[in-house]
């Protein structure tokens, strides 16, 4: 688990400043989507061995939601971005 996270807004910060929400699920379905899509969004998580994308909230800093890509095996963090960019990429 990462000890330090490079917040895109604040720079390198300790894990203690963050709150982890969990895996980035499937994008929030459209209002009219069927129940199955909603179940996937609300409940389905992969818990992968390897590359993993998670929501981290910089609660002790800028209070922005971030998406952190990390490897659950090697603990390497490959990317940290502001989570607001997800939706434009069709991911939120």
């Amino acid at each position: 688990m990462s000890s330090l996270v490079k917040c895109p807004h604040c720079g390198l910060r300790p894990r203690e400043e963050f709150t982890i929400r969990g895996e980035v699920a499937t994008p929030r379905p459209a209002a009219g989507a069927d129940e199955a899509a909603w179940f996937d969004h609300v409940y389905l998580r992969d818990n992968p061995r390897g590359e993993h994308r998670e929501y981290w909230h910089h609660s002790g800093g800028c209070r922005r939601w971030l998406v952190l890509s990390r490897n659950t095996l090697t603990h390497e963090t490959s990317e940290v971005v502001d989570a607001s960019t997800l939706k434009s990429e069709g991911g939120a």
Partner: protein
Amino acid sequence: MTSFRIDGGTLIDRNDVRRFTFNDEALTGFGGDTVASSLLANGKQLVGRSFKYHRPRGILTAGAAEPNALLTIGRDGRRGPNTRATMAELFDGLEARSQNCWPNVNFDIGAMNGVLGPLLGAGFYYKTFMWPAAFWEKVYEPLIRKAAGLGRASYDPDPGYYEKCWAHCDLLVIGAGPAGLAAALTAGRAGARVVIADEGAHLGGGFLAEGSPLGGKPADAVLADIVGELHALPNVEIKKRTTVFAAYDDQVFGAVERVQKHLPEHEINPHRAMERLWRIVARKVVLATGAEERPIVFGGNDRPGVMMAGAMRTYLNAYGVAPGKRVALFANNNQAYQTAMDLEARGIDVAAIIDPRTCPNTGYDGKARMIAGAMVRDTAGRKAIKSITVRHDDGRDEVIAVDALAVSGGYSPIVHLACHRGGKPVWSDEHVGFMPPESTDGMTPCGAVAGKTGIAACFAAGGAAAVTALAELGVMGEAASLPDIKQGDEKTDHIQPIWSVPSSKGKAFVDYQNDVAASDITLAMREGYDHVELAKRYTTNGMATDQGKTSNVNAIGILAENKGVSPGEIGTTTFRPFYTPVSFGALVGASKGMEFQPVRKSPLHGWAERNGAKFVETGLWYRSSWFPKDGETFWRDSVNREVKAVRSKVGVCDVSTLGKIEVFGADAAEFLNRVYCNAFLKLPVGKARYGIMLREDGFVYDDGTTSCLGENHYFMTTTTALAAGVLTHLEFCAQVLWPELDVRLASATDQWAQMAVAGPKSRDVLAKIIDEDISNEAFPFLAAREVSMFGGRLKGRLFRISFSGELAYEVAVPAGYGESVADAIMAVGEEFGITPYGTEALGVMRIEKGHVTHAEINGTVTPADLGMGKMVSVKKDDFIGRVMNLREGLVDPDRPSLVGIKPKSPSDKFATGSHILNPGDAVSLANDQGYVTSMCHSPTLGHAIGLALVKNGPSRHGEEVVIWNGLAGTTVNGILCDPAFVDPENEKLHA
């Protein structure tokens, strides 16, 4: 002083005599001594008893790996159990005690365990004490606990202050031996930010044990020059007495600095930390942790007087302590011969050098008798070694009288920190040891940990490692050197691995601390526990405070030898933090007592205090829970009085802790419409609305009121409990789900002191301080707006909302003015009989009114369950939780739903958490009708009342039920009813 203290000793100051006690015996040592060196100087070879067999044990090492000499040092709250005598610095007045022996170290009843030895072999926990099962708890466990175990912790609080700290550097150098010092010097001269940490009281490592001059200059003078230069470099931070105990992800290292643990009580500065826990953020790391000398596993190898050869050399050269008068050396490598040479140089008789190698090419030209191709198979002596038995290569035994034996079985690189992040050490036949993993990710091992021997070679390696690390940071550096010493002049050492002496007589110990003998390891193998991780757990080899620093590699060697494979194929157990034990004090830091967690205080805290409030912790907040008056000794008397005052007159309550969030932006209304399940789009300016937030899974998350204070400006309140959670949730919605909306959120909780003024006279009270018309017509229920107060001297916000069910307002003023305003309200309210009330009375009144809190909003309820199903919008396309709230299971009419409950007989009481049954039904899950979520004594009605979630509850008002309390084993007859016990028609609310 005794004859064991001889001349020399670069670390001690003979003018600084220090008195101490060991098992109540008064002894003296010198400044610079460790407890171990001073005990040895006093001829104390026997310092403790072993863990399982209570065998006499002495000092084995001179450093962090010590498995035997664990003492309890200090008294009362400063008592430190399991303190390694080899690491503890001697101070005047120190009190040390042996552990694990009763009645005393010389006569120990537990030594009977030695006789019972056969019962205590590998896996004895799983075998010997298995039957009968009932005996375990009552007989076996207390017996084992009394007989075994290490030191005992103090029950007294530690009076010392502890703290945590962050450090940052370009280069972290771990270990200040020759390699580490060279690395620090190299990087320091190049201008890099350097932290160099060493667990010892002195920088130097291998320099400290060196008895011979280096390039014509005494080793300690060479060292002094290096240390002097390092101290002069402002960019180099030197941390002595600092153990780097863990390597965490992202180049963060845990270290503990023993700031004042080496000082006598009267020198301790109470304002300075006893120990400091460091988290060091390092861009690059030079690992210069050195190597641990390995014992040899032979019969009687645990007898006091048997010592590691390198340790013996340290005691001799650094502390001026002779290990004995007639010493033998048992070693399988050339480096250890240095000990024999140094002993002879000090005039100590070296009786023999026993070397298992048949033709060792050692270059040794001393006086001692060389016995090649031989091994020590046994030792004799009751509490200290008297003789050794040597098995010659021709099978002949020879007894040699000695009073100390130096042992060296090779060197194990201290690879722990290179392996904490998952790296596996690599076996090297050349070095006969496990080397650091090849890929160490920003960390460069150098010196003895990388297999180098000798000061010159290690120093050169350290300089080179720093140059490499600096280059990766884009910094040019030139390796520091020791110009007077020829580099690479060490003879190539040839170590012959020797995992255990086959001819050993008696117990040959692998792990001293856990009393694991070679026979235990082979027994574990025979019983199928031959995997290294299983063998560890079955035999306990490598456990406890030393984590097998002296034993693991020998155990692996024995496993390998018996399986006929290389130690590399066996592999090591997993390296995890901590490298050496870290006190709980250091890990806790300053977070104890009142500093355990921060306290949040309401802006009205002082006002509440002056009015005699009793406080309750609600999360981090201190909230006033009731305000006892003279003569009230029982809390409920106060609460009853407060409730009656509000219901009949007027009361004032601090509600500042409710979460408050300002919501701005062109899309603020749309945003609120999406986060609440009820409609918010058309909330007019000047109006408040009660709202329910769902979670995306359709259950209720939180409730509160949101007011529209202006165009695109809303003011949301949340419950105290979920203030932070709701803001975080809203931020998620705004930033992640709908970043296209213009919505801006600001926490305003702390800006406002907020008071609920409730009761039939509340309007009369507020009219006296609010400049505007607040009549029912001008300021009806759910009105909300900024108001002028005190004749225009203050602006506040007024909300006509009510949790108590009475005519009520909440008034918010800038926090700093809170106390003045509360005082003013009390003063103007006096004529109306105003009473301050706390959260207890608030809680009673909300139950009387049937209002829910998180006792009901417990994560399993829908709005419909709470009787608010009609609030959920059917018109809105989308809001959080809309789809999942319509799931089959969430709309089942049989769901437990909110209902009031009261005892059939008004004198009966019942408890929250009690379950509801139909009369006559047996207690079973199938018969369960629901449960009580809240209850209180209603002073308004004069009996107990409660809220409950009951199957079909709303259609069962008037029905008789049984309230079953499984914990107390009691049942009470109850009646289900309307949850609004008071003013169900809301007449008071709208008055």
